[in-house]
C-alpha cells in the first residue's frame, strides 16, 4: 500500500492518537491536580496524591513486590525458554511433535481456571502467600509462547554458522554463546519484555494466591483503590500512574525490537 496521500495518513492516525492518549491524559490530570479542582490542565501541579498512595497506601511496598516478581519471572522465562528453544530448533528427539502440540494446547487453558489446582499445589509446597508462587505461575504461563518464539528465531539462523564455530574448536556451549546468542537479541528482548510486562500486570494470580497486604502487587493495590467506597479519584489516578510507569518505559525502549522479534520469530514459526 505505497503512496497513500498525506491526509489519508494523518487524519485517521490523528483520530486514533486522540483515542489512545486522551485516557492517559485524563489519568495524569487527576493525578497531578489538587483535590477538588475541576481544571482540565493540572496547574499548579501537586504531588499530594502520590504522597497518599506511595506512603499512605503502601504502594512503595507493592511496587517493590511487583518489581521482584517481574524481574524474577523475566530471568526464569528467558533462561528456560532459551534452553528449551535451542533444543526444539536443533535436536530431533522422541516426543518432540507431541511436545509442540502440547504447547499449543496450553494456550487454550484459561489462567482463571487454573487457580484452584494451582492453589492446591502451592499449598502443598507451602508457597501460598509467597511471591514465588507468582513467579512460578507467571513463568509457566509465559513459557509456551516464549519457546515458540525463540525456537522459531533459532531455526532462522543458519546451522552452518554454528558448525563453523565448532570446526574452529568451540564447544557446543561456546559456539552457542558466541554465535547464536548475539543474533538472538531481538527475540530475547521480546520474550523478556513480554514476561516482565505480563507479570507486572498480572492481577488474578496475585489476587488469589496472596493474602498479606505487605505482599500485594501493584495491580492488587490498585484494585483495592477501585473499591466501591473509594471516592478518592486523585489517589486512584496516582496509583494508576505508578502502575503504568514501569511498563510504559519498558515498552518505549523495546517497541522497535518487538516488531522485529515478532516478525522473525512468532509469525513465521
Amino acid at each position, binding site marked *: *500500500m*505505497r503512496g*497513500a496521500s498525506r491526509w489519508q*495518513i494523518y487524519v*485517521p*492516525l490523528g483520530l486514533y492518537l486522540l483515542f*489512545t492518549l*486522551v*485516557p*492517559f491524559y*485524563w*489519568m495524569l490530570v*487527576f493525578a497531578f491536580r489538587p483535590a477538588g479542582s475541576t481544571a482540565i490542565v493540572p496547574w499548579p501541579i501537586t504531588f499530594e496524591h502520590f504522597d497518599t498512595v506511595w506512603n499512605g497506601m503502601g504502594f512503595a511496598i507493592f511496587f517493590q513486590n511487583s518489581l521482584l516478581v517481574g524481574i524474577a519471572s523475566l530471568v526464569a522465562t528467558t533462561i*528456560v525458554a532459551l534452553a*528449551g528453544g535451542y*533444543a*526444539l530448533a536443533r535436536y530431533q*528427539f522422541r516426543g518432540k511433535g507431541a*511436545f509442540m502440540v*502440547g504447547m499449543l494446547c496450553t*494456550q*487454550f*487453558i*484459561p*489462567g*482463571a*481456571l487454573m487457580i*484452584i*489446582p*494451582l492453589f492446591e*499445589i502451592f499449598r502443598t509446597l507451602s508457597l501460598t502467600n509467597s511471591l514465588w508462587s507468582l513467579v512460578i*505461575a507467571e513463568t*509457566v504461563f509465559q*513459557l509456551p509462547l516464549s519457546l515458540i518464539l525463540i525456537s522459531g528465531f533459532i531455526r532462522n539462523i543458519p546451522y552452518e554458522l554454528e558448525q563453523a564455530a565448532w570446526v574452529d574448536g568451540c564447544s557446543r556451549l561456546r559456539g552457542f554463546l558466541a554465535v547464536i546468542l548475539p543474533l538472538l537479541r531481538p527475540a530475547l528482548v521480546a520474550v523478556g519484555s513480554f514476561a516482565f510486562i505480563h507479570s507486572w*500486570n498480572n*492481577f*488474578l494470580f496475585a489476587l*488469589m494466591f496472596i493474602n498479606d497486604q505487605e505482599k500485594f502487587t501493584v*495491580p492488587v493495590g*490498585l484494585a483495592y483503590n*477501585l473499591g466501591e467506597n473509594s471516592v478518592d479519584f486523585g489517589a*486512584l*489516578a496516582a496509583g*494508576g500512574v505508578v*502502575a*503504568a510507569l514501569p*511498563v*510504559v518505559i*519498558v*515498552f*518505549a525502549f523495546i*517497541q522497535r525490537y*518487538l*516488531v*522485529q522479534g*515478532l*516478525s522473525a520469530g*512468532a*509469525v*513465521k514459526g
Partner: protein
Amino acid sequence: MLIAPSLIAMLGFLVYPMASVIYYSLQHYNVTKPWDNGFAGLENFRRLLFEDPIFWQSLGFSVKWVVVEVVLQFLLGLALALIVNESFIGRALSRALVFSPWAVSGVLTTAIWVLLYNPFTGMSRYLADMGLMEYGAAPLANPDTVFWAAVVAELWRGVPFFAILLLADLQSVSKDLYEAAAVDGASRMRRFVHITLPHLRDAIILSTLLRSVWEFNNVDLLYTLTGGGPAHQTTTLPLYVAQQAAQSHDFGYATALTTVAFLILTFFSIAYLRLSKFGAKS
C-alpha cells in the same frame, strides 16, 4: 537435557493441574460442606447443563464479548498497522504512542476508564458542559450502556496487539511485488486484496485465534470494571467460575465449569484452524 526445565515446569504446573481439574470436576468438593464430599460422577455437569441459567447466560455473554471484541480489534488493528507501515514524518513516535496501551494491564485500564466514565468528574461532565450530552450519564451503572462501555475500554488496550502483530508481518512483504503490480496498473485496493491480505493470512488466523482465547478468558478487566454486573449481565464464564470458587467455595462445581470452558476453547480452536486451513499455502 535442555528441554527438561521446560518439560518439568509445564508438566508440573500446567498438565498436572489440568488433570486434577478434571478429577475434581467429578467430585462433590465444597470446603464449607465437607460432609457431602466424595465421588459425584457426572452430577456437576448435569447440574450446569440443566439447572443453571447463569451458566448459559455467562456462556452467551462470553461468545458475544469475544465476537464483538475480536472483530472490532482486528479491523481497527489492521487499519492502524497499514497506516503506521507507511513512511511519514513522526512515524516512530506515533508507533510508540499508539501501541502503548498494549503494555497496560486490565486493572489499570479499568482505573483509567472509571475516571473517564464517572458521571460527576468524568469526560461526560465536560461534554455536557459544552452542551454535547446530558448531565449525569453513568455508562457503567446503566444496563443499556454497560456492555459498550466495557467494549470500548477493552478496545483501547486490545487494538495495539493486532496492530503490532500485523505490522510485524506487513514488514516482510516484498516491496517488489507492489511495484510490479503498480506497473501492471493494479489499483491500491486490488493490490491490498491480492498481495497484502494473502500475505497476512497466517498472521491473521493466528492473531484472531489467540485473541479470541484471551478475550474469552478475560477476567481482570471485567472483574474490576463491572464485577460481572449489573445482574450477571457482564459475567463471562471464567468470571462465573471465579465467583463459584471464591464465594460459594464449591470447587467441584467450579472445576466442572472449568472443564466445559476448556473443552469449548479446544474444540473452537481446532475447528478454527481446520476451517481456515492455517498453514496451507495460498
